[in-house]
């Protein structure tokens, strides 16, 4: 009897958890297809808010900026972060310790503090707020995550491997590209994924360092949300679907590959 009750309790608790987490998300998706402006009554299915979103040039611009910045920031931070992590793994312990400490600062700091720090830094250098400052800021907060996800893979790497490659006549670049990088690939991929989603979703830091009409999706939602505007639901639905698709692909591909690999052996 007691066991049954406990079972019931855990089921109810998990059910409530799922509803709490997903009701708002489903609510946004549902009402993005509403044919009326209302946020309470579903009047009928329509794509009118999607049409409105597509014809809204500020929204489309924000989408474009978000994607371009996220792709560029991911590319730059993945390359720089990976090279830095490899460089650090061969550095003296003291140097490594110091760099790792400073590298953690953007992760530990409240984002608003990072945001205002960068705002003042760019203004001190006389850099105009806009695309460049936004990109630099995103690279700045993405690199630490790449380093954090690559470093553990490097720790478990046999240090003699690269030496062996060099002894066998590989140039340092060949050894890097053909021996080290393939071994740490999972760390690089998960670092790139974290960087992409961090950049794609960022609001606080972007909000402080951007200007000149360069907005990303989050900033647009923030400035437009003061009035009821169902196009935001349409835009949000796109964001939700895109991130879910990215996560799905990233989580599913390794499983499929794994299955294929097992079938072959």
């Amino acid at each position: 009897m007691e066991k049954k009750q406990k079972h019931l309790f855990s089921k109810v608790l998990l059910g409530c958890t799922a509803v709490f987490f997903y009701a708002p998300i489903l609510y946004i998706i549902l009402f993005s297809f509403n044919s009326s402006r209302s946020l309470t009554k579903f009047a009928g299915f329509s794509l009118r808010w999607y049409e409105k979103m597509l014809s809204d040039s500020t929204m489309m611009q924000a989408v474009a900026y978000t994607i371009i910045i996220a792709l560029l920031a991911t590319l730059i931070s993945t390359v720089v972060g990976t090279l830095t992590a490899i460089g650090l793994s061969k550095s003296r312990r003291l140097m490594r310790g110091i760099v790792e400490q400073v590298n953690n600062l953007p992760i530990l700091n409240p984002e608003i503090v990072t945001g205002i720090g960068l705002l003042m830094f760019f203004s001190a250098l006389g850099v105009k707020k806009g695309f460049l400052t936004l990109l630099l800021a995103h690279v700045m907060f993405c690199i630490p995550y790449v380093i954090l996800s690559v470093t553990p893979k490097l720790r478990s790497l046999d240090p003699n491997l690269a030496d062996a490659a060099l002894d066998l006549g590989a140039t340092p670049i060949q050894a890097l590209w053909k021996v080290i990088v393939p071994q740490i690939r999972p760390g690089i991929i998960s670092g790139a994924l974290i960087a992409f989603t961090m950049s794609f979703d960022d609001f606080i830091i972007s909000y402080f360092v951007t200007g000149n009409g360069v907005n990303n999706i989050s900033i647009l939602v923030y400035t437009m949300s003061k009035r009821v505007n169902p196009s935001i639901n349409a835009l949000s639905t796109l964001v939700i679907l895109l991130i879910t698709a990215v996560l799905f692909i990233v989580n599913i591909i390794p499983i499929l590959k794994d299955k294929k690999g097992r079938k072959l052996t």
Partner: protein
Amino acid sequence: MKQYRTMALPYIVWMAGMIVAPMLLIVLYAFTDKGNDVATIRFSLENFARFFSDQVFMSVLKRSLFIAVITTAICILCGYPIAYVIANRSEKSKLFWILLITLPTWINMLVRTYAWMGILQDEGIINHLLSLVGLGPITMIHTSFAVVLGMVYNFIPFMILQIYTSLTKMDKSYLEAASDLGANRIQSFLRVTLPLSIPGVISGITLVFLPAVSSFFIPKLLGGGQYVLIGNVIETEFLTSGDWNFGSAISLVMAIIILFSMYLTKKADTDPAANGKENA
């Protein structure tokens, strides 16, 4: 192998510029007067004096801390049972539920907060459902309730994941030992499981309290324009009033409060957990 060392150099230079210099700028601005050039720089504590002597700012600070503490407490009280239940499920079910809880954290926080705006409004879906069963509309949006709800919604996944990790890492043979030694389930939970999961709770507190105390868009969206927390003050000083010196001083005060509370939680962690381990 030393040839690879140089690859870290560009990032070290970058860190000095993009991470260290901005922090130093915050400290510099916080301790100087408004509108001075490098030539006429004047150090002062004026900004801090202004902040601590103003009743309005003090009540904002108190409210921010209060909201953050309440949010953290709710995240522990609700997050612990959820993590506990998940940790005791079958392997497959565990993975499923952890994925279910992780997934929303990848979706834009702003979008998720915006969703609650529609739900909590006076003519929103909850009040609509209430009116169907004959209950009057309840004002939820633009109240502390809405702000705390928004924060719990955004931050509780971090708490659940931390507690879950510490619970699954726990050596199950301790529990067997406890029951062999005659402990009932409540006793073995209180004296074995709970103390061993405290490190997870502590890192959960860090991950919830820090964003909660510095949050500014959740109070703005769900609390309305009148609802001001310390993050909103900083936002206004930097983007509206343009008083960077004062804004920097407030950020510094906030950063110190956060560091201090981290230090306190860490300290609270080392004492009872050590005792707990001895008891276990």
